[in-house]
């Protein structure tokens, strides 16, 4: 069965990103895959409120704003997913008693929003210069009703899918995923297949991110060297 947008099963949608778009944030990035588009802004390390500050590490706070309307329970779930993914990857002990605030704004949601949000946040953290253990990249897979597995599904495919799976991986570390979100009914074989597909997809996303960041750094380095 061919996909609605005629992609191959393991093909990602066209990726696009831009760094440092928001001029009042300390770091920001927009990440889009096809029609799904997310902007992430980083503020930090800034002074934490007395009741939330931790004496030995930075506090990571995530706010997720949907494209339409006020945040709902689903969005709170997304906030905790992003926080759990990045809390261990940010070297929080380097900036004790501070707050790193991550604000994620969904611009348009057309499936695979959670992986796009994680990718955007990863780029924004790099743009803000927050110390990170490694890059984090995520990808989504869906198992359709005819048992085929597709990467980076659109909302149309997710609605028709039996199960969807999102995995986030840390670059260069073989120690399993940082974040797993599986919804629907699936067998263990299907899960493992999705795991492998997503692991491959995140490698491609990482290569894309590397190119984007290298482009920005080269641009700045050229000027300071001149």
């Amino acid at each position: 069965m061919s996909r609605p947008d005629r992609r191959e099963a393991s093909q990602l949608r066209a990726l696009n990103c831009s760094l440092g778009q928001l001029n009042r944030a300390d770091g920001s990035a927009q990440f889009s895959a096809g029609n799904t588009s997310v902007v992430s802004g980083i503020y930090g390390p800034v002074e934490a409120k007395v009741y939330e500050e931790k004496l030995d590490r930075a506090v990571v706070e995530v706010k997720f704003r949907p494209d339409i309307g006020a945040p709902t329970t689903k969005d709170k779930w997304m906030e905790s997913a992003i926080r759990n993914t990045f809390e261990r990857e940010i070297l929080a002990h380097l900036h004790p008693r501070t707050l790193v605030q991550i604000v994620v704004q969904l611009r348009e949601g057309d499936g695979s929003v959670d992986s796009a949000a994680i990718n955007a946040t990863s780029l924004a953290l790099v743009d803000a210069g927050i110390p990170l253990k490694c890059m984090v990249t995520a990808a989504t897979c869906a198992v359709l009703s005819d048992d085929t597995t597709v990467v980076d599904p659109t909302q149309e495919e997710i609605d028709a899918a039996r199960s969807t799976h999102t995995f986030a991986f840390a670059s260069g570390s073989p120690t399993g995923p940082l974040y797993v979100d599986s919804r629907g009914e699936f067998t263990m074989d299907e899960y493992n297949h999705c795991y492998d597909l997503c692991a491959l997809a995140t490698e491609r996303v990482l290569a894309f991110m590397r190119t984007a960041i290298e482009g920005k750094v080269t641009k700045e380095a050229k000027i300071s060297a001149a």
Partner: protein
Amino acid sequence: MASVKIVLPGDIIDTRREEEDTAQQEPNVEDEATVIRLGPGLVQSSESVSAVTAGVLHSNSETNRWWVAGNKRRYVAAVGEPVVGVVVARHGEGYRVDIGSAHDALLPQLAFEGATKRNKPNLAVGTVVYGRVVVANSVMDPEIECFNSNTGKSEGYGELSEGFMFKCSLGLARRLIDTKAPVLAALGNGVPFEVAVGVNGRVWVNAESVATTILVANAIRNSEYLDAKQCRQMVKELLEKQ
């Protein structure tokens, strides 16, 4: 320009290359004796060195120092760096100064040239000061001083009266600190002005007229993504319009 090595967080840095070079020159030196000093953007994790921020990898083969130069917008205080701050509160023995880092810096009342218990400067909230960071670590609030505590001389630090302060990226501020910064040199040839650059991404400028102050501030802000030649052209155009 030599090939630029750009690193991303998580990249493992191969620092051994340098060690081998020195080992070849001086066969007596053991590998253990070679101490590598890591600067900003690098951390040691068990046996290897990895980057934690994105930027250009630099190394000095003589001192065996390694660091990553990137651009940021949020300042993290480091000892000895000149900063421009704004007084936000007065205390019994000093001032609280906003230097753009996570926590406000302390500025003791006696940390000025010629200040004594009887005779000390009286700064109002909102005053802009140029100081140098003397205490900076992650567990304490930073502290700044407006004189050199060894010589007792101000060395250009102190209250910045009049003028205009604006913010820029930390990368631009570091480039402006260099006396050869093309935009400042080009401006200096055209109009007289005073400038105080803080590496916390704050720049204070003052000139004879308000119009000139604004011109200088705009020129510096425009120079973020311009090379030396483009800077000179941009300044020339601005001066012609004035």
